[in-house]
């Protein structure tokens, strides 16, 4: 330990040599003048460049700003997703039934009306993209081997008299 300290002492003496490294004579006499010249020549930086420039001086400000920016971005994304899902639910709910029944294609009566069990099914007007139950497609089958084309569609049930 002692020799280590002695060695550090020798190192410190060697490092002291650096104190004798001086700039050319007259350098410090002219330096303030050069600084003032630059201050007067260069326009003051804008708020943003000053703000960003301060990051080097106050790293905490930089970290806080970064954190804030990430937070804003995150909440922005979350808010956007939330709004989109709410809008899609609202738009689905806000389509008036009357409109749906008016615009939806009418299934031919011969397919929709079944009178065998003592009840009558009203002609069904299906909303195009709001299906919940499978109904038989009204498209004519191209061949015997193509399977039954079932698709789910919302049905309105009204008991017959």
């Amino acid at each position, binding site marked *: 330990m002692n020799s280590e300290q002695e*060695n*550090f002492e*020798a*190192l*410190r*003496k*060697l*490092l*002291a*040599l*650096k*104190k*004798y*490294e*001086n*700039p*050319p004579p007259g*350098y*410090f006499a002219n*330096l*303030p003048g*050069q*600084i*003032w010249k*630059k*201050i007067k020549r*260069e326009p*003051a*930086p804008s708020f943003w460049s*000053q703000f960003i*420039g*301060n990051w*080097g*001086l106050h*790293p905490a400000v930089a970290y806080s700003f970064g954190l804030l920016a990430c937070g804003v971005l995150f909440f922005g994304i979350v808010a956007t997703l939330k709004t989109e899902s709410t809008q899609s639910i609202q738009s689905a709910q806000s389509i008036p039934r009357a409109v749906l029944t008016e615009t939806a294609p009418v299934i031919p009566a011969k397919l929709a009306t079944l009178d065998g069990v003592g009840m009558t099914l009203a002609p069904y007007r299906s909303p195009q993209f709001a299906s919940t139950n499978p109904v038989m497609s009204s498209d004519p089958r191209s061949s015997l081997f193509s399977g039954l084309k079932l698709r789910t569609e919302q049905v309105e049930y009204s008991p017959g008299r």
Partner: protein
Amino acid sequence: MPWVFKKSTSMKTELLETIPLSAPETDKKLESKIRAGEDLLLVNRAKEDDSAAYDDLIRRYQERIYATVYHMTSNHEDANDITQETFIKAYRALKSFKGDSSFYTWIYRIAVNRTINFLKTRKNRVHMSLNDVDFNAENDPDLVALVSDKTPRRDLNLAELQEKLNEAMQKLSEDHRMVVTLHDVQGLSHDEIAKIIGCNVGTVRSRLFYARQQLQGTLSDYLK
């Protein structure tokens, strides 16, 4: 807490200093407090567009700031540029200086950050442009002893030793070089360095120890 009072001729006790002083305070600390007080007055005047006050501040710190940057870069031109940038930046940011730390710490911090940023961009393109060694070095008994007795090559002159020393310094990381520069070359205390760099005193001590060990290894031929 004792206060320093001065009795005026009119027998009125007048507060000499508003800074409370604890008993074992050293002269150095007192000196630095006085200096900080003077700096604060100059800063306040400079904030009110008194250019003479800022000129005084430049003259007060230009040598220390330049030396710090120079020992970090081992290049006079780079040190000149960064020193000027530091004072310009400080002048522009003077309004935001609240006095939480001393002006001395604040301006040093600007210089240190600018230097480290510069060194990061300059990485792997070290070009030394060393200043001449002052002729007073030849009269420094420690250095004379090092050059004449301890070096393996007795004919080694100061300029060569200076070059070897700067090469060894450039091999250190920026953080380690900064601590060695501020402590062993500039003579700042651990506390002051910790405030400037923004870390705790323990970190400063460990960096200093590691940097010295590394320098000792690199310069072993000159330390025997």
